[in-house]
């Protein structure tokens, strides 16, 4: 992890993930609510609903309070003249290497929340897989995209 070539994501990304998890994971409360509608609220169902509710609540809090920090802390990327390296994963850690000669196309994309925070996601596609660098500063993301496509052109080879 001390490799000097590796960069971290833009810290503002944490905010974005917090907002999107805050909104997105609210819908998990539909599970205990749905349970009440199906089975009622009496007897042992009461305890079960409460447990379920508590579980969803804890998950929801975790997902927007802590998880984004963990994700950010574990994300690293590196782009050089020969390959792209991505390291991420909170529990299951992955370390991916993509040779630049295999890159088919790169693009940046923004959702509404990302745009508000002036961030973009860089998407790297090969002939077999698609990888993302989420939450980079929009200017930086553009630079990374250009860098990748320039290097990729230099390393041009067939599929």
């Amino acid at each position: 992890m001390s490799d000097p070539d590796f960069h971290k994501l833009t810290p503002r990304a944490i905010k974005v993930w917090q907002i999107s998890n805050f909104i997105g994971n609210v819908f998990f409360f539909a599970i205990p609510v749905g349970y009440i509608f199906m089975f009622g609220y009496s007897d042992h169902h009461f305890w079960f609903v409460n447990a379920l509710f508590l579980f969803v609540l804890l998950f929801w809090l975790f997902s927007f309070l802590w998880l984004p920090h963990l994700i950010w802390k574990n994300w690293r990327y590196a782009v050089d003249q020969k390959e792209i390296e991505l390291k991420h994963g909170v529990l299951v850690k992955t370390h991916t290497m993509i040779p630049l000669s295999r890159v088919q196309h790169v693009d940046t994309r923004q959702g509404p929340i990302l745009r508000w925070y002036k961030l973009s996601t860089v998407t790297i596609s090969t002939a077999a897989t698609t990888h993302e660098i989420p939450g980079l500063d929009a200017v930086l993301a553009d630079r990374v995209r250009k860098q990748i496509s320039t290097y990729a052109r230099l390393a041009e080879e067939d599929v």
Partner: protein
Amino acid sequence: MSEFERQHPVAAVSRAFALIRGNIVTILIFLFVGAQSENFPFLWWLGAGFSFLLIMGALNWWRFLYKLDGDTLHIKSGIFVRKNLYLTKDRIQVIDITSGIIQRMFGLVKLDIQTAGSSSRQAALDAISLEKATEINRILRQIDPHGPLSQESDADPEGVPAISSDDIRKRIVMPNKELLIAASTSGSFGIALSILATLFSQIEPLISESVIFEYIFDLLPSQTDTLMIISVILIFIIFAWLISFFSTLFKYGNFILEVKEKEIVISRGIFEKKRVTIPYNRIQAIHITEGVIRQPLGYASIHLESAGYGDEKGTGSIVLYPLIQKERILALLNDALPDYQKEIQGVSPPARSIRRYILRTSFIITILTALAFWWLQLNLLIWILPVISVYWGWLRYSDAAVARGNDILLLRSRGISKSTAYLKKNRIQDLTIVQSPFQKMRNLCSVVVYVASGDRGKSFSVQDIDLQEGERMLTEFRKERPAVDDQANPVPTGMVLLPGWN
């Protein structure tokens, strides 16, 4: 061929049949529903459907034009929305010449040109004469880019110049014995069974109420329900086996593998003949599969991955050789793919990962068995399942191995069947090492490698190898340079010579 041409009119019919084949399930359900209703003139329905399909096919045929322009094939298609498709020579992955039953009645073939994009799916010429197909094939595959194209246009009038044109270095014919074994141990058995089951569930309500059913039922001597069920299942299995036997037989009959200077040509099929041409530099990976039934018999099948779209499922897997004795694999690979390094010193996962392999396969099965045993009061025999799963985990452990060659990675692993993959380093799309918390405790990791294949790509992976080994693979892949000197930092676990078929 600088003018636009239309295909042979038979293309209309074969297009109609392709439509039928593509919607066979819908049509079957439709037929069953139609057969049940009394007040509908059923034959009318059938006739109208068929003529609709034929008209669609004919329109498609009329609006489909193709032209060979230098080394570019230009196709115009689409009934209302016109689509122009340009296929350039240096982007072609696989060329596929098929002659189905309809085409053969008219001496025609289907020419299928696959590039790495799924849009080339529409670039199939359904029915053209063999001479024309051969000519296009030859021009598009021409080895010397500066060669005079004009001289190629007068193709050999006797037909099949694709074989006679450039010399064949090696010609391998599959013996009948192996074909029969391949057919009888075919993996499509399960698929056939599931199709039969689906069909049966559709017809079952129809026949169980019919007179015939009762008649047959009366004929059977003093049956019990259990006997009935067992015999029905047996009949099913036999039927499914027969279907898979004959479909494999027809598919891989007359199998010939030809090795040429720059490409491999695979011809196969009894009724529907197929000839696939794959240039060497388009082969993404080779993998050898030893199925559970075939492995004890000492047989395996060889596939190769191409970036062309391949079959209907969108995977680019092509059968290089349907069935071969284990001892002969290396010899065949040496003949067919001389530029692959075949035998490499490799590493098995360390002994500390045995536990993980066994737990992974047996954990859930054991719990489920225990629950089922206590709650459902099952026979003691049910405990054979966890025992099998432990054995399966052990098998998976002992089959897993990785090897790093000069320009090649060899990954061997087992899901249900054992698979050995040869991956050229410069064909690998990406390489990932994954480490779960449990693997971290034991200093292990899994390695996942993607190669291009069809639309989506195909992954090969080996689980629970030593973390150091995984990192070494990554470093080596990064530098794209020859193997790390293993003498300098010796691998802690036992070395094995892969693939170890001898």
